[in-house]
């Protein structure tokens, strides 16, 4: 089965990049779900933990490239927060590698699709999230 991936996308860069991937018909697996927030800085750790609790095998937070954040520095806060959450995931036994951060601009449709494909492959190699067997999540 395809691993389940959740992508948090910021409204200005990566969500527009995801749209551009669509407009350009760059394909990636259907098990990727996109969640729109205004800024990657809005993504709090609890969203990430809950995504895992609700069946995700991998979570990716995407935002504008450093220096290009629509909100000046929200993406840098996201970076710090993701880094800390990765440590927590490692500590919890889920593995830090199930959480990723990527900068994707509004013009990088191809990159968006590539990142989703690659991340899906990497998570596939890791196997399903260990939470699933313990919590009987689908």
């Amino acid at each position, binding site marked *: 089965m395809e691993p389940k991936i959740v992508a948090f996308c910021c409204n200005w860069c990566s969500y527009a990049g*995801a749209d551009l991937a669509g407009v350009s018909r760059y394909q990636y697996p259907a098990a990727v779900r996109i969640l729109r927030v205004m800024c990657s800085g809005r993504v709090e750790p609890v969203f990430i933990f809950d995504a895992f609790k609700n069946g995700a095998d991998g979570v990716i937070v995407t935002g504008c490239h450093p220096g290009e954040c629509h909100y000046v520095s929200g993406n840098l806060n996201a970076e710090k927060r993701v880094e800390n959450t990765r440590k927590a995931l490692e500590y919890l036994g889920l593995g830090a590698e199930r959480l990723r951060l990527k900068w994707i601009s*509004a013009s990088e449709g191809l990159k968006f699709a590539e990142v989703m494909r690659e991340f899906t492959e990497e998570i596939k190699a890791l196997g399903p999230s260990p939470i699933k067997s313990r919590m009987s999540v689908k």
Partner: protein
Amino acid sequence: MEKKEKVNEGEERIGVFVCRCGVNIGGVVDCDEVARYAATLPGVVCVSVNKFTCSDSGQADIQEHIRKYNLNRVVVAACTPKTHEPTFRVCCEEAGVNQYLFEFVNIRDQCSWMHIWDHEGATKKAKDLVRMGVYRAKLLEPLEESEVAVDQNAVVIGAGVAGMQAAMDLGDMGFHVYLVEKEPSIGGRMARFDKVFPTNDCSICILGPKMVEVARNENIEIMSYSEVVEVKGFVGNFEATIEHKPRYIDVDKCTGCAQCVEKCPVEVPYDFNEGFGTRRAAYVPFPQAVPLRGVIDLENCLRSEGKECKACIKACERDAIDFSQEKKYSKVKAGVIIVAPGFVTYDPEPGNDYGYGMDDNVITTMEFERLLNAAGPTEGHVIRPSDCKEPMRLGFINCVGSRDVKTNVHCSGGVCCMFNMKNAILLKEKRPEISCYLFYMDIRAPFRGYEEFYNRARELGIRFVRGRPSEVIEKENGNLVIRAEDTLKGVVRNIEVDLVVLGTGIVPHSDIEKLSKMLKIPRAADGLLMEAHPKLGPVDTVLGGVFVAGGASGPKDIPLSVAQGSGAAARAARLLVTGKAKIEGITAASDTERCIGCSLCVDVCPYAALTLDEKENRVMVVEAICKGCGTCAASCPVGAMEQRHFKTEQVEAQVKNLFALT
């Protein structure tokens, strides 16, 4: 399809509208199945499937359902909020549903188009996405947009032909314009051209009067030799900081008589002539410059070496020379900003691009342009740099620094095909006995009169060789051998010429990155500024009140740049004329009961919109400053800080339903 029985769960009455978007969604996703599924979700009282939900009839369908079923939440599963959210928000408001109670579910750009061959997977995903949308919609809260007054001034960055046009249009409408130009004179690239295609009119003859008109327009304040270094604020209320570089000449006293120029002992390569010929350290940019005032280039002035040269001071009868001038800053307020910094041509790498920079007789087409120009360094006589002889055989090479995986894959939009072709035609018209070879991959001649121009080039005897040259070999006498495969004949040709002209592609101006970062305008893959929508918003940016025009947002010829200048002015004028702009209702909100005054949110706010009320030990939000990123909400350890429309429970509602079916 209608679900008749009333759903008694809370007070939410949700309508779900699934769009087929012709076959864009309907060809991949089973929309009826999605609608059937949506009807089973809690709170959903009706569902409807439309061929085009955004059409008049589709929107009327939404409004009818709102009235018939007394809906208080609307979910549309269609294309993308980036383009269509405003449309449906208005549709809902008209029918009495607050626009923030509308939820967009993206099942086209991020579903059907992404999974063209996986119909089953795409349908399942669409169902999940709709479920997420419905659960989020249940928790949405009505919000109000705030209205702000729009300052009646405009800032136009860049005074090339696009920026000048924008400034003139706004000035003529009665708005005050600060026209900020980095160079000492307005005019931009067009001021450097000899003739312009496809009519071959004299460039400065048509631009010069326009430049004078700009200067005469009483509503335009030209700030030449100045740069915008900081922009604060938001739509309607920007504050720009402008740096004014010192000219070391008092512009109020100077008349542009150029007596200081004559007496200045220092000669440096003349940048306006692409480095050909020289100018003095004290100079007037070019004869038609506006403002026609002198500048002293202190970097090259003898004074910067500590010498006490007073040549210019003595020469100036009006006492205008003033070495005490320093960089100055001014702040201006403006309601709108038009960004028109222009473009540059690709700078060939020495040794990499056909021997440019190593072989004297390989020059760029911009340099050739100045040689052709009657006001240029050679007064219009084409000579080759190595021995100043007139070249009798010329090779023009197209697509240098464009359509090339090694440097820049993008095409310059036909502009450099036409540019190089024009220069060959001008030369051939002056001296028919000169042989011209033009090496091309494809000729792109898309607009009115361009194809005819190309035919004329052929009729004049310019020889077109289809193929990208592999190398240019310099001979001892300075002649050059261009080696290229003629892909139409299928043979390798070695053509000896006296001068090689590189048709360099259009690339981003160095200022574009700076402006992009300063104003937060995203850049496209080609590095140029990105418009709000490639088809329907060509002069808008994603930022309210900021518009873009000219070569900065993609290669453009002169008519298109002028049209964009006018277009940007018209778009900006909408805000200026009404004097009002709407601000999104998505801002931070602090629950002062819960707040513990830890101030973690204050530390991460990029706008200083949060302040700690020390008496109460609670954080307060200054809503006029908040732009609604939500970074504060994510940092709050007690859940007291929230981002409206993206409240924790609203996002969590989506997270909990991510994979309900799959």
